[in-house]
């Protein structure tokens, strides 16, 4: 008998797919990313206490954003909103990001339909990668998905391979 390397279920020799978890048994499934030791990963800035959703954000006036696409020269002013979705428009699936990078070659440059979000809490701006395929970079540092990172007044952000300058207004 052979053991499934993923779930441990036993199978007859020659079995191709685990009936329990679907793993391809001859190779033990697709190659997976090995987690690096945590001291080798960049530290995520700690979220300030007042940004943890205490309700204070309701009292802060919302600010708008100016976005410059560095390669195409396109400029977008995003109105004041508590959250802005950055990605690529997909009409079929009903995905309409607030900042649509399709005109900037988003499809070929690895922009996911739902790529990142920029949001305001307690008067501060944060950016969070929402599980994109090709990552979000803030000042050349790759963001850990689903962790909010604070923004400065002016920021160099890379969405897939599309570079943006985001300025708070």
């Amino acid at each position, binding site marked *: 008998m052979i053991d499934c390397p993923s779930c441990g279920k036993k199978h007859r020799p020659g079995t191709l*797919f685990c*009936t329990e978890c*679907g793993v391809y048994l001859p190779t033990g*499934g697709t190659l997976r990313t090995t987690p690096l030791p945590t001291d080798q990963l960049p530290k995520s800035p700690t979220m300030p206490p007042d940004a943890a959703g205490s309700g204070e954000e309701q009292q802060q006036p919302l600010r708008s954003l100016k976005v410059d696409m560095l390669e195409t020269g396109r400029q977008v002013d995003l109105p004041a909103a508590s959250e802005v979705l950055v990605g690529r428009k997909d009409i079929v699936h009903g995905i309409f990001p607030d900042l649509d990078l399709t005109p900037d070659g988003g499809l070929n440059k690895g922009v996911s339909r739902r790529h990142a979000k920029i949001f305001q809490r307690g008067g501060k701006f944060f950016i969070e990668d929402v599980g994109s*395929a090709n990552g979000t970079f803030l000042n050349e540092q790759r963001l850990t998905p689903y962790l909010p990172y604070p923004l400065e007044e002016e920021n160099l952000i890379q969405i897939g391979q599309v570079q943006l300058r985001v300025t708070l207004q």
Partner: protein
Amino acid sequence: MILLTDGHTYGDEEKCIAAARKAGMDQIGISALGIGEDWNTEFLEELVRHAEGTCTYISHPRHVRQVLQKQIRGLSNLVARDMQLRLNFTDKASLGNAFTCFPEANRLKPEDSVLNLGLLNRNSWVQLLVEVIVAPELEGEHRLLDLELSGMVPALGKRETASFSLTGKFVEQPGEGQIPTAIINALSRISLYRMQEQAWAALDEGDPVEASNKLKAVATRLLDLGENDLARMAIVEASRVSEGKQVTGKGRKTITYGTRALGIES
């Protein structure tokens, strides 16, 4: 006949099935298009099974035109209908499970050793996966089953038949030979299809832990295949189940029909 329906009857499901069976015998095909999340999947699947049709899930009314066009195009390209594969097993083997892999992954229910395959369109094909069960001590070369494929060809006005036999060679250890990619792809899709079947079965039997685990495994496999949207749906539904909530109708239908429709490259 193409039905646009929610699949809910007024207590006369049996009569509908009987009518579909009669339609099938009179060579009238019935396909069903279900829109939205509340349509009665089990009933419509049973209905179309008797009349060579397919069930198609349409998540939003805006997709109706596209699906209708595809259905009508399929009907105008018809080469053969009432395709049947008769399996006559020798005493060395018996039938396990049977599935279609293309044009969609689906479980086949044999009736008196016959698999009903429905329609065959021009420039298309039907790909099957048939599990053949043999005794573990079998060695050497054995004829396992005789197959008879038949279909009504409207252009000829008659039924055409082709016969062939399946022979298996059994050795103690699996060989080193390369397994054809088409077989691996077919097994991969069917394996995924069966996992989602098992998830719903566990849920229907009141085992949310098993159902949630299966849905998570389905999500992992879907991510491997690059089907991120379907995977996300499976993760969401797995979370709902593990929290003791009901799965959503939309989630269940999207996962079921989404895994069925995953393309197979042969």
